[in-house]
């Protein structure tokens, strides 16, 4: 598929394939096993495909949608070979992952007046700070001036953790003491970014469980305070989801979008999970596009998400 070569250098495609190896071997193998040796699409095949999808964390609703789409396209009990069936599934799944607002094609920032402000949010332990480190690295490599803001003032040593990433990537980190007001840190960071003419400003926030109302309100405050410096900030609110999270990911996304209107998603730790299927469910069920996926521990292992590349990677194309 030469289409992808535009977006993916060979190396990147290889990392994606490698990173998703477990996912692919799991989802793909499960589906293959489900359809292997069948010449007709009967109830049993559909049941097996359903099980394969559910055990891959695709989620009940999206699974039902895929099965229904499949049923619509094949007349019941129609004779059909395995390749045809796989192709059909591939088309359905990659179709579900398409998004109107679309993915980024490169680590290139949209034009804004003043710095582009990206706020990173998520529940505890999903990999927010690590994702920020990797983002800083990617954008800096593209020649952008990046500033990080350590607004996770709650968790012990979170500020130091971001500081280490700052050193690694050679990017300045604006910080205050542990326990200080996150909104104030965000404000400082934006002011610093404006005065230094930085291109990109990434704000780290403390992990918070999405059902804690007061913590979610805090996020709205951070947002409001940032707008005092850059009126249209934040340009991007990135919700980081842990790839090994199950159906709770959808609840997280819903709660966070109510508090801060998230604009994009990053799904992390996809290299370790056999269940990258969650990305399919997320793309289908949410109104927000997946923009980044984390497929490894290296600084380069945060990639731009391309639905078709992802689907074809899943289907071993």
């Amino acid at each position, binding site marked *: 598929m030469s289409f992808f070569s535009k977006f993916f250098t060979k190396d990147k495609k290889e990392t994606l394939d490698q990173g998703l190896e*477990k996912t692919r071997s799991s989802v793909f193998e499960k589906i293959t096993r489900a359809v292997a040796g069948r010449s007709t699409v009967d109830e049993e095949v559909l049941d097996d495909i359903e*099980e394969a999808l*559910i*055990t*891959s*964390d695709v*989620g*009940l609703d999206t699974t039902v949608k895929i099965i229904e789409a499949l049923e619509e396209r094949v007349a019941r009990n129609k004779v059909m070979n395995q390749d045809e069936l796989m192709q059909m599934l591939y088309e359905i799944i990659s179709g579900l992952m398409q998004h109107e607002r679309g993915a980024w094609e490169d680590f290139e920032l949209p034009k804004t007046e003043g710095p582009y402000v990206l706020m990173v949010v998520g*529940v*505890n*332990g*999903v*990999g927010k*700070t690590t994702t920020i*480190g990797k983002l800083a690295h990617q954008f800096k490599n593209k020649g952008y001036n990046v500033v990080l803001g350590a607004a996770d003032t*709650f*968790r*012990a*040593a*979170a500020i*130091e*953790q971001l*500081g*280490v*990433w700052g050193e*690694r990537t050679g990017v300045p980190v604006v910080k205050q003491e*542990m326990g200080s007001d996150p909104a104030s840190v965000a404000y400082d960071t934006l002011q610093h970014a404006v005065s230094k003419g930085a291109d990109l400003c990434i704000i780290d926030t403390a992990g918070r*469980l*999405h*059902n*804690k*109302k*007061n913590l979610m309100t805090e996020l709205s405050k951070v947002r409001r305070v940032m707008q005092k410096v850059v009126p249209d900030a934040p340009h991007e609110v990135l919700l980081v989801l*842990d790839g*090994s*999270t*199950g*159906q*709770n*990911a959808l*609840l997280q996304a819903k709660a966070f979008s109510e508090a801060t209107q998230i604009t994009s998603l990053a799904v992390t*730790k996809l*290299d*370790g*999970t*056999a*269940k990258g299927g*969650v990305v399919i469910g997320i793309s289908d069920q949410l109104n927000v596009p997946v923009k980044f996926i984390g497929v490894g521990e290296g600084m380069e292992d945060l990639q731009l998400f391309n639905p078709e590349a992802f689907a074809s990677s899943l289907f071993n194309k």
Partner: protein
Amino acid sequence: MFESLSDRLEGAFDVLKGNHKITELNIADSVKQIRRALVEADVSFKIAKDFTNTVKAKALGQGVISAVKPGQAMVKIVRDEMAELMGGQAEGLNLTSSPAILLMAGLQGSGKTTHSAKLANYLLHKKARKPLLVACDVYRPAAINQLQVLGEQLGIEVYAEVGNQDPVSIAVNAVKHAKSNGYNTVIVDTAGRLAVDEAMMDEIGRLHKAVAPQETLFVVDAMTGQDAVNTAKAFNDVLDFEGVILTKLDGDTRGGAALTIKSVVNKPIKFIGTGEKMEALDVFYPDRMADRILGMGDVVSLVEKAQEQFDEESARKMSKKISQDAFGFDDFMEQIQQIKKMGNMKDLMGMIPGMGKALKDVDIDDDAFKHIEAMINSMTPSERQQPDTINGSRRKRIASGSGRTVQDVNNLLKQFTDMRKVMKMMQSGGGKRGMMNMMRGMR
């Protein structure tokens, strides 16, 4: 905790409750809904299937059809099976060797460092142990620092070696350090690792062998999806761990991991993490958890929590004051402090049978008392003792002193008066209605 699973299950039982005539078909329908509820709660597909098959067989065998209240008979079967699935009895820690060594292992971001500290705090205060924390996460930036900060907060020593990149030797040295310094408990925090990362799994295998921990605890995020099964298996293959700590249960997880892990690796869940505070670590009781999932509350835990904070003398005084109508704001404040020590409000209220559902959409945050405390703190001692004397100008002063509006103060006073009535009523046998009013008063 687990509200949405409870909801779905209730729907499944309604199939049986609403129908006057119970047939095998109704039961099959109910069972199917239970399975869906479980799968949506991230219970492993296979386990959900096995579980519902067992439930179905028992339901048919035990004559749910002919039971007087088929819905309840079904709830009982599900509840018992669920408790069984989660492990039956609560299991404590085995800390007999000297020093007792605990090893924490798990995926990135599951909460190992936080729970190492919580566990140390628990052992120090509740089990009278002398714990040493060991920082073996040499990979994640500032992980060692994180443990040190937590150790400092708790007044617990943290053993770390700056510059040493070999966790195995750090752990071995830490055990020596513990022996020569009189620590009887060593808690080893390790780096997060993916089960598929062979080099890292090999490393923790070596660490495990080198320090021979008495308790290896697998730390897992309660929101984990279908992959929980594979991850738990992979860690168990390498470490043959003793138990599980399930974290972030204060989220709105549907608890699939809790229901799944025990039966996959046959290792008990020993503790659950229920909040961000260092005290938010509870012993896991499978049967109580099953009650909570099925909306039956957990009175036993609630009473236990209350007992921990309970002071007989002050309770007697309080009760006397209530009956004499002398219950003032000082007493109220004291009660607030006690309740706050017990833990998260919503969780506490959820332990009262039937309340979980009533509270589903009620929002009670941890700072629920903050404004109330501020207003009480702005009262003079005599005002606190005799709330009736608080007139208009005093209200105004209290409002400006606490940064609230006069209306807020009015509300507080009104609620307080109501609450006094309710308390008196409860003393002479009130019940749940009284509690509900009191809750409303506290919001």
